[in-house]
């Protein structure tokens, strides 16, 4: 190759590599497998496991059984956690909260959720979920990756890998964590890690404060014009290297530095809520002015959705109410009810709800029997994997639907059981992805999010 053609080749190749990498990444060929209604997901993970009995699964007949030992015919010898396995009695603890019928469909919801009640016709309440895990970490890992032990890709990573990104200056998978007011269990970065998928598909955690993304801000004393010049010179030097080496990694690197530069502008712009109108804060509640709160993260979730982020996941900690449940669950609901409902309304009014799936739920349910002493006003609940509730909205999910039922004690599923794999398969279906065909070969095996199970629950899909 003579010098002229070499240069021409270089510049064309580089330009097109830049175009490829600078653009939103494309995802896998052949995906989506079919036209799905949803393009993105906002997953509101209620970390610690909210009590289905006090929020969603109305059991009026329990009142008269208050304090009575949970019948063995209901428990059927199923395993308990090590925290209550030694407990001498299992006193039935009906919820002390009132339930009301809401919306056109008459969905039963607890008085703790007055705002969710107002969007009842937009949400699909599932009361028949169950999981295999009985402790937090494996249970969260199971929801995030389809497997209880760490090491597999999280659902957001699967989607970033399969469907690619729709944004040129934001990651495809963004995570935000907020602190609740109750018992907090630990979270881990690996809950949004990419497992055996390349690490570029890992969730990027946005944090409250000056550096929403790690290392986003230039050092003190170094301004944007200096950074621009820096990158121009860096690009020149790297291009010289590319001419010599021809290694495409070099041009990718040049492109990634440019994306970094764009992120330095786009991320602060995204997280700057000062230009949001007053009505936004009214809708999401007073907490939404506090950076890092669940409410503020809900506003950010909407802004990320608007900017094309594929998978937005919020974790709100503090639902692990082994004791003082009535007091703590009220506090948690005060923080989460209004902003969660506001997100549904807000997306709807912007026309985004139809192609966004919102998911609200924890990692398992809680026991009908009290952990610790049951009093008139107080009780605690232990982990309960055998049944629990979640709600979904938007993105092709039927609104106003109450799906599945549990027995009189909300202990076992009575109708339409649905497990974590089914939820994943159904979410993927709404996104136009056949869960059987989104796979990655690792250690000789074709892995998928739904492991070796999963069934699309068509009843949920409109």
């Amino acid at each position: 190759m003579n010098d002229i053609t070499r240069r021409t080749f270089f510049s064309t190749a580089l330009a097109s590599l830049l175009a490829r990498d600078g653009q939103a990444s494309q995802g896998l060929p052949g995906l989506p497998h079919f036209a799905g209604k949803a393009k993105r997901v906002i997953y509101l993970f209620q970390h610690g496991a909210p009590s289905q009995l006090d929020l969603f699964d109305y059991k009026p007949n329990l009142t008269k059984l208050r304090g009575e030992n949970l019948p063995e015919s209901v428990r059927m010898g199923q395993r308990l956690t090590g925290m209550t396995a030694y407990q001498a009695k299992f006193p039935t603890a009906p919820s002390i909260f009132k339930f009301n019928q809401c919306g056109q469909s008459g969905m039963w919801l607890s008085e703790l959720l007055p705002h969710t009640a107002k969007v009842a016709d937009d949400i699909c309440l599932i009361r028949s979920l169950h999981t295999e895990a009985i402790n937090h970490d494996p249970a969260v890992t199971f929801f995030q990756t389809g497997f209880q032990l760490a090491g597999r890709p999280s659902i957001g990573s699967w989607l970033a890998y399969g469907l690619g990104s729709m944004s040129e200056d934001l990651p495809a998978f963004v995570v935000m964590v907020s602190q609740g007011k109750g018992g907090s269990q630990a979270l881990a970065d690996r809950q949004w890690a990419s497992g055996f998928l390349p690490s570029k598909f890992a969730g990027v955690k946005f944090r409250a404060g000056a550096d929403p993304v790690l290392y986003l801000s230039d050092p003190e004393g170094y301004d944007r014009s200096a950074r621009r010049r820096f990158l121009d010179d860096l690009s020149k030097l790297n291009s010289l290297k590319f001419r010599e080496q021809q290694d495409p990694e070099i041009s990718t690197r040049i492109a990634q530095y440019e994306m970094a530069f764009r992120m330095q502008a786009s991320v602060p712009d995204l997280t700057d809520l000062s230009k949001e109108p007053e009505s936004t804060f009214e809708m999401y509640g007073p907490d939404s002015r506090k950076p890092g709160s669940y409410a503020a993260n809900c506003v950010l979730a909407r802004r990320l959705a608007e900017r094309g982020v594929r998978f937005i996941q919020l974790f709100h900690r503090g639902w692990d109410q082994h004791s003082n449940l009535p007091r703590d669950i009220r506090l948690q609901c005060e923080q989460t009810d209004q902003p969660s409902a506001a997100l549904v309304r807000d997306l709807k009014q912007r026309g985004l709800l139809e192609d966004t799936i919102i998911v609200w739920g924890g990692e398992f349910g809680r026991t009908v029997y009290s952990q610790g002493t049951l009093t008139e006003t107080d009780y605690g609940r232990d982990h309960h994997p055998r049944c629990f509730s979640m709600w979904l909205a938007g993105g092709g999910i039927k609104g106003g639907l109450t799906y599945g039922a549990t027995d009189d004690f909300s202990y076992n599923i009575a109708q339409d059981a649905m497990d974590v794999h089914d939820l994943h398969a159904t979410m993927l279906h709404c996104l136009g992805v056949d869960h059987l065909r989104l796979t990655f070969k690792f250690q000789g095996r074709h892995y998928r999010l739904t492991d070796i199970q999963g069934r699309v629950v068509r009843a949920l899909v409109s």
Partner: protein
Amino acid sequence: MPALLVLLVLVTLPAGAQTGVEFNRDVRPILSDKCFGCHGPDAANKKIALRLDSEAAAKADLGGRRAVVEGSPESSELIRRITSAHKGLRMPPLASGHTLTSEQIETLKRWIAEGAKWQKHWALLTPVRRPPPEVRTGGWAKNPIDHFILERLEKEGLKPSAEASRETLLRRVSLDLTGLPPSPSEIEAFLKDESAGAYERAVTRLLASPRYGERMAIRWLDAARYADTNGYQFDGERTMWRWRDWVIQAFNANKPFDQFTLEQIAGDLLPGATLDQKIATGFNRNHRGNTEDGIIPEEYAVEYVVDRVETTSAVFLGLTMGCGRCHNHKYDPITQKEFYQFYAYFNNVPESGRAMKYGNSPPLVAAPTPDQQERLNAIARRIGETEAVLAGNAAEARRARAAWEEKIKSGAPVYWAPEVMLDGAFPLDFGSPGVVGSAASFDGRNPIDTNAAGQFDIDDRFSLSAWVRPDCSDCTLFGRHGATPRARGFGLHLESGKLSPRIINVWESDATKMESDARLEPGRWYHVAWTYDGSKMAAGHALFVDGRPVKLETKQDNLYRPFRNAGAKVSLPFRIAPFNFTGRMDDLRVYSRVLETEEIESLAVGRSLNEIAASPEAARARAEQRQLEWYFLDHASPDATRAAWKQLAALKGEREEFERTFPTSMIMAESPVRKRTHILNRGQYDRPGEEVEPGLPAALPPLPEGAPNNRLGFAKWLIDPANPLTARVTVNRLWQMVFGAGLVKTVEDFGQQGEWPSHPELLDWLATEFVRSGWDTKAMMRLMVTSAAYRQSSQATPDLIARDPENRLLARGPRFRLPAEMVRDSALSAAGLLTAKTGGPSVKPYQPEGLWKELIMQDMDYVQSKGADLYRRSLYTFWKRTVAPPMMANFDSALREACTVRESRTNTPLQALNMMNDVTFVEAARFIGQRMMKEGGADADSRLRHGFLLVTGRAPSASEMEVLRGNLRYHLDYFAGAAGKAEAYLKQGETPPDPKLPARDLAAYASVASLLLNLDEAITKE
């Protein structure tokens, strides 16, 4: 551009088109990937008649139809079905998610047409050492590796590249062997040495550097899932760095890889196992441990063993054994039963499924560092010297003692008791008749409280000793509990008259409880003593009645959290007779150490020294004699003897205190009674099936002659030359370190689903060479880095990149981004900041604030290290599993949750932000800037050249210099422009700049240095 993309798509490695179809290379991968899922080793479970994983089965007559008919694709059912136009008949079925490409169908047809020759899976055959092939191109090959590489290149019609420049080569080999770039003086010395063998000498120097062991250890830490925390939810701290030290040391000492393997798998079982050999077995204890409240321990006990199986099989055998956990392996000849037989080798550890919430979980060993061992030896020497002094004075002492005994016969009563580490002594002289003076009488409602003693937690050692005369049989003698005998704390109880020592955090899910065989009869005096060694285990307790050990039955042994857990506390002080104790008690003594048996025996004497002295010597018990002796030495012996005796006690106390500072390390051990292993149905802990014995898969060779059928025999089997996998898998991983990808790219999987080797004969040659050399790892590394293949320039052409994008054929030298650790270590090294210290506990370098707090539970925060510890090599960075060091995670390091052997490299904007703005790199740039100004001469050009050399190991080109000059000028102007900018910029990082350097200039050079650190070349091995 489209043309380039098309080329990229067309490149495939196996070159089957020109030559005949080869089963292992061309056919097996298709059958395995697309068919074995159903028609493989697990077919029977799915009730599928046809199996394609064995020749006999695939060619068998199944009712008139045969899947494979040699020479006749048309009559082969396999071909009919994969080409069937009928959707319902066509294989693979739609629902499997698999499809065959037309090339794959063509390959299968050709294979059958050519006679359907079968081969056993290559990786299970013993490696065959073929002589290095003849090559047409003379003069290029430097060692046998090159013959194999060149033969393939010639076959492909490619030529090797020219040798890389000497600067590039030195940087490449320095990074590969030490993980650090060469210093300017090393570069200068190397460039000056133009004599033959200069490169080889550089290799020798690098292999001898202590940095070599650190570099090799990093990847081994990934494989062994090393971390400083337990993982899972709470993710508390553990200390396994003594194991890490062992690994570094082993690499530096070039411990032969077979011995390296043997010690890590079964060092504890070697005859006369040394401390180091025990520490080595930490390899199989580096897995995660769950401490979550409420787990079912049996469930996780299974996970730990499975992790050992998966890790050991991936690291040494390149097998995905874990697939056999729930069912027969879908691809490889490993049945579910064989999985559990393999599992049985690792299932005999005396361990609990619930790990200790803080610190190491048993089994463990006190693991003093070499420095500590030295000091321990020094103390032992001084003890010996002091004992010699005592022996020298013995005659004089004997005389003095006789006189003293005579004297005390008639004196006021005196009692002996140990004084070392006495935490509190309570004579309880309250007027009731006692044993040692008078005693206290209790009516069940009059406990005595004290805050002066007994403030122990579960990891403290203690001893409690007292005389008791109980009138109750269900009561508590003493201890420190909350409001009830089942509340948090510790205490010695009577239950139906049986003595019951207890330590409780939460009854009964987090507690130790034991019960004596013997019962205490009411109304009789007993001496009782309870010792505890701080191990948190039931086995760490001992109980003595009247000076003799009594048998204890363990009722509960699942203590895992300290009293101080998560802000919890014991609500009451140490209390004597806290719950319902009626009767008398006398002379309670609390020690903060484990009393020796002889001391307890003597404490239980109950006679005054005066009485003993008054009795004839022959009538004295051994314990009584000892009492006299000890009291005399303590109080009445001649000055010289007493001084030596006190000195001896002080030294023993010093040793005891010192021993408590030793780090511990988790190790493998065998339960005295072999634990039973069952096949677990669907892999579930609570669904045991048939019981199995330890054993090896039938597809692999048997245990070597004479090897025991336990973990030790297993380890010997791993390193037996008959094992077809260990040497291959190991050299392949070393190859990956050097060349970027393994000869078998799937370094973790040599099974049927693994990739066919790019150079199968080279792999076998290297494997046999490794064994032949005595498993000499340094020699193997030397062989690789001195090959001509390695020394090639990494410059590529678009054609070559299109032809071989991953550089598997090695028509050019390796070029790829550095692993995370090297990215950081190189920057620190160029800055002159790197701390050259080997080994020791993990450190906590810069990390953005609050990262742990946001995710974890209450009581563990990241406390950043200071001074030199900020700049240690990255393998010493504290690794918290749930919140990995962010820079490491950004640069694709293994996350240490589970074994990782495949290296991964991505290229992301987060890496760019990390390099530009992380204080680690901003500060490093500042120091490079400082070095440019101080070492780089007076003029700007030579300073720029110096900085460039520090970072890239070479001199810049003219066009590069032009950019650098412009950049420097820009930054000089920029920092001159506004007051305070330079000062602010220079403030980053904890080590201040040289105050003599003008701020504006330094800031400008630092900015240029940052530019250099951000170069693709700076983070790339070229």
